[in-house]
């Protein structure tokens, strides 16, 4: 893990200090010359978190339920916020951006007594993910871009007495960003962080 982080820092530093001659000649104030982005986003279905933290009571026999599963303590509905993410991005090339992001998914639920159905406890938890991503921009205009991304990070979560540390492999097969210094973005995510549509806003500087 430590070597991985050192390698990331070295890569960012090497790419940051090497500027092509053509980039220096651009008109000052061009959005594509801005080297940094900050993004805030939300969305997608956190399938890995659901698998890790939601135990489905499928019972044993009698068509799927044993007496113990019928009358034991049971879980009420479980809710998740979805992944709320914050990123700091290094625009190293017009076609390549290194993103360092943190995602947070909140979890809540209730546990009930199996015989009386009375509330026994209110449960809450979270999953936090550190996710560096490599973003590849294959269509770039000043106010509109299309890209894909891939990343590998680490997740830590806890809920109902269970703590899970797991790797997080994530991809964005398709993403777009539109706007000027302040922009909006939308992505189709497919990975261990979440699956589905995510969106958000960002600032370039």
């Amino acid at each position: 893990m430590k070597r991985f982080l050192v390698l990331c820092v070295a890569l960012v530093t090497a790419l940051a200090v090497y500027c092509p001659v053509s980039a220096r000649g651009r008109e000052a104030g061009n959005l594509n010359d801005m080297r940094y982005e900050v993004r805030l986003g939300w969305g997608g279905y956190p399938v890995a978190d659901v698998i890790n933290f939601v135990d489905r009571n499928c019972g044993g026999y009698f068509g799927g339920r044993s007496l113990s599963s019928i009358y034991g303590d049971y879980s009420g509905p479980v809710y998740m916020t979805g992944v709320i993410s914050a990123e700091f991005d290094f625009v190293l090339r017009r076609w390549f951006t290194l993103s360092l992001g943190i995602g947070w998914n909140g979890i809540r639920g209730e546990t009930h007594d199996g015989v009386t159905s009375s509330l026994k406890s209110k449960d809450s938890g979270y999953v936090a993910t550190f996710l560096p991503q490599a973003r590849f921009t294959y269509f770039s205009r000043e106010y509109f871009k299309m890209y894909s991304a891939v990343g590998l990070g680490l997740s830590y979560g806890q809920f109902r007495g269970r703590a899970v540390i797991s790797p997080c492999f994530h991809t964005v097969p398709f993403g777009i960003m539109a706007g000027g210094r302040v922009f909006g973005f939308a992505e189709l995510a497919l990975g261990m962080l979440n699956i589905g549509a995510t969106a958000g806003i960002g600032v370039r500087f």
Partner: protein
Amino acid sequence: MCLVVFLAVSCRVYKGDNHADSYILEETSENLFAGYVSAPVIFVDWMQDFNGYLFGENGSWNDIAGVNVVQTGEHAYHIDGFGLVDTGGKSLDDPGSVWSITAESYARWTGFSSLQCFGTANDEPLAVTVTCGSENMWELSASSQSGHADLAVTKHDYEIGNGTYEARGDGSFDDGDYSAVFSIGPEGLTIVRDDAGVMYGSFKVEFMSGEQKLDTCVMSFYGNEQSFTTSRD
């Protein structure tokens, strides 16, 4: 304020566990009835045909498509798709005869009158001991790993594939910290072994935790129809 916003955007990812409600009580009662009452009675009906093949004049057993019978011991037989039958060398209708039946596990019981029916629905092997008390009357003892039932069965107006049986008795099912105690109603249970599955009578289940009664479910049969009354209605 942020927490309120975050909670407001939560979505449900799991509807919650199944737990005791009227539907689950009905379903569990149905399975207990099927496994420990109607299945043993139907086995007696099936064994009438096998008994006729072994000890009677009509040897038509092997005419039934897809059913193979292999003799595995002096008086023991394996019936394909059903299980093991040990006759003890006596006809099922002889007073004092004892037949031992073991319905195969991991099989599905369809409730049909043909011999392509199988064992129990709960994937536990069901052993049934059938003891002939007198003409057309048997004592049944049905047991699996977790449950047991004692039944008295009387046959009325029997014809091949269309017998009428009256059953009385009770039993229990043990699941560790919880159990179910069940019984046929005082008026008895009448089962007509035709394709319509006609039944009359009632079947009561009490769900227990130790000595504490948690719930009840009563199944009432009116011919082709049945109704449920549970403590969670």
